């Protein structure tokens, strides 16, 4: 029982982090209909930037305070992501409006390659550290109930909290601010949005910026968990099932999907794995999403499509 709870908790926390990456996908797809395969690369890029800046800032400024370094690094990395977003819109997206999905998808793959190369050129291809002082040692709750207690990973806990905070922030941004409403309008119907005078180009830049920041936060958390290096980009592949399960266009879907996938893959690995030799969690997540799709082709919260002829 205790162990089941531990697994579930672990799953939930990983799920929250998946959700964070998935969020990036959803935001961009919602606003520009682009399925952004570069999200993983962006996570890596942002993390690299932050890690290196945190390392360099003390050398530049001579101020040895870790908090100062991290915050400054975060801001700088944020700026880097903004620039990236702007460049991507300028050089790529605006030349590819109303191309079909596959083309756009590949364009983002191309972007991914480019960012991978650029990131390693600018920031190096070694393992770097993001130390935002997340506690590494575990705590054991409810020892009174279960012997050995339930292991809770402080780091994950905080990470999940940050993720949750970010999500609430975003949904507020979408609901309350005028930009947010504009974004939603664009998401619903490009032409209509344009016709009422919403500048698409700007909206896209904004949404890519937001996605960039999400990537940065994701990168920061994963980075401080795993250390920043190339493989970070692969977390995107773990987040894909989340996106299709949650529905490409739904923010709450991304969150819920993340949690479902997180818990699903951990439970499967721990309880089914041993019978089939283990290592099943990746494809299990996909199959889970797949089976789910068979019942709801448009995902958890995606809009239903009606054929008009």
């Amino acid at each position: 029982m205790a162990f089941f709870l531990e697994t579930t908790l672990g799953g939930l926390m990983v799920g929250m982090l998946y959700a964070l990456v998935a969020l990036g996908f959803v935001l961009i797809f919602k606003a520009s209909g682009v399925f952004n395969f570069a999200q993983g690369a962006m996570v890596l890029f942002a993390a690299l930037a932050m890690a290196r800046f945190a390392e360099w800032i003390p050398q530049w400024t001579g101020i040895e305070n870790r908090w100062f370094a991290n915050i400054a690094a975060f801001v700088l990395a944020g700026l880097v992501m903004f620039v990236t977003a702007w460049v991507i819109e300028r050089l790529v997206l605006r030349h590819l409006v109303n191309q079909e999905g596959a083309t756009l998808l590949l364009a983002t793959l191309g972007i991914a390659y480019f960012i991978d190369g650029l990131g390693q050129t600018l920031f190096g291809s070694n393992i770097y550290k993001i130390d935002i002082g997340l506690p590494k040692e575990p705590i054991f709750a409810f020892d009174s109930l279960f012997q050995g207690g339930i292991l809770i990973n402080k780091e994950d806990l905080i990470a999940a909290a940050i993720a949750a905070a970010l999500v609430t922030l975003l949904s507020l941004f979408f609901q309350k601010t005028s930009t947010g409403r504009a974004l939603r309008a664009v998401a619903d119907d490009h032409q209509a949005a344009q016709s009422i005078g919403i500048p698409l180009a700007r909206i896209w830049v904004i949404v890519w910026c937001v996605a960039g920041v999400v990537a940065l936060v994701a990168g920061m958390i994963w980075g401080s968990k795993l250390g920043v290096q190339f493989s970070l980009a692969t977390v995107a592949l773990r987040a894909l099932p989340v996106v299709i399960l949650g529905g490409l266009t739904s923010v709450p879907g991304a969150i819920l999907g993340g949690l479902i996938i997180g818990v699903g893959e951990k439970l499967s690995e721990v309880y089914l794995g041993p019978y089939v030799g283990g290592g099943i969690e990746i494809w299990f997540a996909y199959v889970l999403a797949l089976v789910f799709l068979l019942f709801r082709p448009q995902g958890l919260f995606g809009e239903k499509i009606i054929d008009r002829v």
Partner: protein
Amino acid sequence: MAARKIGDVVLAVQNISLSFGGVKALTDISFDVREHEVRAIIGPNGAGKSSMLNCINGVYQPQQGAITFRGQTFKHMNSRQVAEMGIARTFQNLALFKGMSVLDNIMTGRNLKMKASLLQQAFRNPFGFGTAEREEIAQREVVERIIDFLEIQPYRKTPVGKMPYGLQKRVDLGRALAMEPTLLLLDEPMAGMNVEEKQDMSRFILDVNDEFGTTIVLIEHDMGVVMDISDRVVVLDYGKKIGDGSPDAVRNNEDVIRAYLGVQH
């Protein structure tokens, strides 16, 4: 026109109701279509005309009602069956296969008639023997006749996407004719055409009707055209049937007049 003798009922639609998540598209619609006649369905935009056709060839599944075709009654239709039973269809806003040439588009209409297996097609040889090649040539001849009939010979190999709208409409008709239908459903065949194009199209429709004796169900906006070429008319408004009968009868029906001229919606 006198030559055509109207036969007995081939298609009967009984109490069809269709709705999308609460929104009612069709409410309790019934009407019938007699052999060899030209039957028109008219009504303002959003009256549910296209939905009606979609029910008949199985694109939508109505919640209630039944459809009887040549004595067989179906709760809802299955597109494949419908096609096999010889019901063909053209589309309101062109549903042609944009990436394909005129020839290929119309050839798809013959696919039901082609029986060569995957392997036979793969090993199809250019020397004129072998099932696949023989079929291709046989069907090609039929298609060529249709192309001649519709007077679009010069466009054979052009991708339909590149053709003028009016001609695309013809290809759409051609694809339907290629199925050698006994019942032909035409969804606004003249929408967005100029007068000449409309005249051509009307001519084609009537020719089809009396040369091949094809029964025709036709959705059209242009009252003039409808009144000229159709034998009987059904009028829909807001998914309800508000009139049914000969063109003259319908022309004098108050509900119809109101629907069209009177109250604005």
